[in-house]
């Protein structure tokens, strides 16, 4: 059994030789190409992943920006709406006030017209009544009545009547 555990030069030499040659041959024709291919594949996968990640980051940034813009837009719209409502209210109030003023003016003008017409009519009526009274009095007396005096009398009478009436 000594032979079993005694290293012997010849076989060691062969082992070195075979292992060394195998190292050269496989390194050149097997491991070299395989490792190169694996590394290339890893690079490609990494590049793809990087591209995907940057695209995702871009998309997220864009989404955030859009969110901000959208929120801003909503706020703007709200503010404008509120402003429009305020303006509308103010204009309504102004229009109402204007309309009220105008109608009041119109009513007061109409009232003045009516007053003026009534006074003119009253004056005309008085004049007419005076004329008729004088004419009637001339007829009754048969002579000319002093116009000025007659008129004074009629007018005083009318004033008394108006006071009573």
């Amino acid at each position, binding site marked *: *059994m000594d*032979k*079993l*555990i*005694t*290293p*012997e*030069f*010849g*076989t*060691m*030499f*062969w*082992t*070195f030789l*075979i*292992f060394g*040659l*195998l*190292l050269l*041959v*496989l*390194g050149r*024709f*097997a*491991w*070299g*190409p*395989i*490792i190169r291919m*694996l590394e290339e594949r890893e690079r490609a996968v990494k590049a793809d992943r990087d591209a995907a990640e940057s695209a995702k980051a871009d998309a997220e940034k864009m989404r955030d920006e859009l969110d901000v813009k959208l929120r801003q837009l909503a706020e703007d719209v709200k503010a404008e709406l509120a402003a429009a409502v305020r303006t509308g209210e103010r204009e309504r109030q102004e229009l109402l006030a204007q309309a009220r003023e105008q109608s009041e003016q119109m009513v007061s003008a109409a009232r003045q017209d009516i007053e003026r017409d009534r006074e003119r009519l009253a004056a005309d009526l008085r004049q007419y009544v005076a004329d008729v009274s004088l004419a009637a009095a001339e007829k009754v007396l048969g002579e000319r009545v002093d116009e000025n005096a007659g008129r004074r009398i009629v007018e005083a009478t009318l004033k008394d009547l108006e006071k009573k009436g």
Partner: protein
Amino acid sequence: MLKEIIEHHILDHVYAYIGLGAFSLPLSKHLLMMLIVAVGLALVLPWVFRSRLPGMGLARTAVETLVLFIRDGMVIPSMGEEGRKYTPYFCTLFFFILCSNLLGLVPYGATATGNISVTAALALSTFLLINISGVAAHGVGGYLKSFVPHGVPVWLTPFLFVIEIIGLIAKTFALCVRLFANMIGGHIVLLSLIAMIFIFSEINVYAGVFGAIPVAIPMALFISMLEVFVAALQAYIFTFLTAIFTGAALHPH
């Protein structure tokens, strides 16, 4: 008798010697096995990688997976990124040991890694790799200095230096014996189990046929399956330990 049978099966058979200058080199069965492994690997691996036959995808994936396992599971964890360039060495080592181990399980095959000369040569290759990579990384002076850790008292330095060198040699020796003993052990157990059939038959034919065979054959089958596992495990251990030792030489502290 039994000793002769076991020796016949686990020792190398020298067919002839060739003289080469002062040396006479044996042409032996284990040499033939190593040649079969080496030529087989040198032919099959490039072919597997290059072939575009439909069935070869699986084999290619298997080889790639093993290479990735060696690189990402052994070389880079124990040696760091600068270990990458040593990956081909570890791939060769792993496949050479694995195929040599497995060839011993094939009928008419023999286990070259069950020969202490072969494992000694492989362990010496590791020893060379450790020292060469250490010198390549730190220079001769730096590598020798890295044997002694920082902060050691000066009077301890020579002792530690010697102890570290003994440690390095012991590691190499352990690598050599571990692989050899594991490969030879299973064979001895298998032979002993089979031999039991004949020992019992010598005592009584019926005891041998009806007593020993039903026990010895299933157990031999079990040990054979264990051997398949051990073949892969020892290839892994040898490669991994080589990576760890080389990593220790690259990063001393």
